[in-house]
């Protein structure tokens, strides 16, 4: 009897999704079983509803949840963003350690190189490195935040997000904004060191720098999220750091001037997207420093295309557009279903 039923189930003669059920009673379950299963059914359907049309969405108990509306997506963006901040603020060791590397670059490498590079101009090489090191802080913090998606995947939390009744775009955007906020905070902490490297605390410069840092932070987080969408193993993070992040950092002009490079290296620095995020930072800082034209040309050459120096706004626009395109692709990546 039951094997017949198994057959029936296997060959698809039972119900259609439209709700044309073949009741279990019909397939030969003993009476005791029918009542055992039948009881909860009655309990779950309010008596008033029996025989009357019941909308499919009618909830049996408890709260009704909404979904798919703009305000739901905004709540999702906000909570994903907030989680990044909670995790960041709870991990004080990370805050401190992620500042160690930039400070080493700035005060140890910068001071060490100063006697060679500053020559007779008494220029403080740390001042040159300052915007680069801010860029470095933002780069590593943003990528690290974004790449935590790989950890979320490994430890399962990503699934909790992906099965939620919200658009994937809201999740991706929340993640990117969260990583961008964290990276901006870290960049701002570095910015506080301006006085120690001979950069005045000019309010306008600080506002411009914070804005540029935030844009760079967002673009770099989106870049990291895009990479994370293709990475399924934590081990691959090391590879990404070595193969992508470090070259980006070294080629961006963050730690050496790009004015007198051999052709092959000059081309690579122009290809590096990070160059277009670091240069606006450097220009903002250098606008506050009195320099001889010779030194300014040497240390602050900007990014040139065939001899034409790109204006700051164009550079920022390029970063913004790149962020938008990458965000779009990242959302597509996370919206795919098996």
């Amino acid at each position, binding site marked *: 009897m039951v094997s017949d039923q198994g057959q029936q189930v296997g060959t*698809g003669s039972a119900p259609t999704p439209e709700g044309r059920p073949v009741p279990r009673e019909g397939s030969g379950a003993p009476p005791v079983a029918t009542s055992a299963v039948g009881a*909860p059914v009655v309990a779950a359907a309010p008596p008033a509803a029996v025989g009357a*049309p019941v909308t499919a969405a009618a909830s049996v108990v*408890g709260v009704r949840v909404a979904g798919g509306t703009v305000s739901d997506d905004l709540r999702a963006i906000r909570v994903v963003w907030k989680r990044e901040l909670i995790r960041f603020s709870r991990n004080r060791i990370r805050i401190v350690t992620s500042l160690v590397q930039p400070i080493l670059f700035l005060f140890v490498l910068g001071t060490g190189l100063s006697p060679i590079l500053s020559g007779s101009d008494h220029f403080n090489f740390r001042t040159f490195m300052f915007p680069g090191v801010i860029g470095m802080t933002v780069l590593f913090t943003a990528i690290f935040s974004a790449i935590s998606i790989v950890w979320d995947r490994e430890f399962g939390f990503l699934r909790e997000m992906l099965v939620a009744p919200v658009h994937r775009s809201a999740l991706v955007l929340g993640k990117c904004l969260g990583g961008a906020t964290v990276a901006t905070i870290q960049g701002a902490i570095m910015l506080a060191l301006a006085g120690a490297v001979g950069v005045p605390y000019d309010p306008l410069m600080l506002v411009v720098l914070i804005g540029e840092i935030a844009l760079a932070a967002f673009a770099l987080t989106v870049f990291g999220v895009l990479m994370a969408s293709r990475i399924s193993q934590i081990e691959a993070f090391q590879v990404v750091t070595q193969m992508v992040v470090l070259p980006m950092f070294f080629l961006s002009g963050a730690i050496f001037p790009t004015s007198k490079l051999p052709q092959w290296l000059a081309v690579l620095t122009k290809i590096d997207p990070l160059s277009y995020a670091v240069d606006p930072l450097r220009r903002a800082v250098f606008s506050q420093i009195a320099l001889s034209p010779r030194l300014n040309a040497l240390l602050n050459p900007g990014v040139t295309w065939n001899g034409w120096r790109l204006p700051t706004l164009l550079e920022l626009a390029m970063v913004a557009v790149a962020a938008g395109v990458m965000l779009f692709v990242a959302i597509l990546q996370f919206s795919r279903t098996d």
Partner: protein
Amino acid sequence: MSQPEGAGRTSIQLEGLGAGQHSIAVDGLAKSYGDLVAVKGVTFVVDAGETFGFLGPNGAGKSTTISMLCTLVDPTSGRAQVAGFDVVTQRSSVRQHIGLVFQDTTLDDYLTAAENLKFHAELYGVPRGTVARRLADVMEMVGLADRADSLVRTFSGGMKRRLEIARGLLHSPRVLFLDEPTVGLDPQTRSNIWEYVTELKRREGITLFLTTHYMDEAEYCDRIAIMDHGSIVAIDTPEALKASIGEDRVELHTTDDAAALAALADRFGIDASVSEGAVAFHVAAGEQFVPRLFAELGVGITSIRVARPTLDDVFMTYTGRTIRDAEASSGDRLRSSPFMRARRG
């Protein structure tokens, strides 16, 4: 398939109610990964308020089926409705009305229990005014109210699972999916989890859909479907499944075994044997048979034992293997749950 008249009429009445009567309705649902057919077209319904279990070895297609019902994996063919919504075309509506407890934990260890739940409440759009009360409710239900502000990383495996069950219930889903809810937990914790789940089901009146490869856990289900090699090989109540494979085993200790054997053969036509000092035989509906035995055997009975067929026996009957053999032979090819493939989907 012969159907009683009454069943046909019932089905017409149910039609008037729409899909609301059925929490889950599945028709020919199938999934292939390249050449590998994970689920070979399954068809079944689960009624509202029912506890329905998928029983089978790892790699039988249980998790793939649950993934399709949860909209995490697109079916290759077939259709399914959960809580009245199509799992392909009404994905978001399905997700709103289901709760999920996965095989592996999906908690953020670096957040507190309450923060994990709040995160969930926001993602599922639980009305702001009710979040705090609902959160306290579900934490109370799973006995974690006093640990709400502890970091999840300080929790034991059982506590994490309970927290996940609480989270799955937070948005008052109509169907709660539990994929191997007790795998990897010790027997004590497993039984605690089941106490909680049974109590929650009573209080929330929701449909439970679970997968397990523990035979004893399938006993908690109103109905179970036995899955093997991507197909449902049997589907019914645990009682009916056990009854379907035949007879109970009865063991007697008597004052005179030889006389008992003869009497069994004479009066009941039963071919019994003596094994391990007891007279043993198989008979349908063993418990009902016992009074007759005392009345008519005519030999002194000192003790009697009636053993029901177990779900292990059921599995063996339908698949020709024990579930443990099936686990061993299914190997690792499907070990990674399709949930793991959901990383981009």
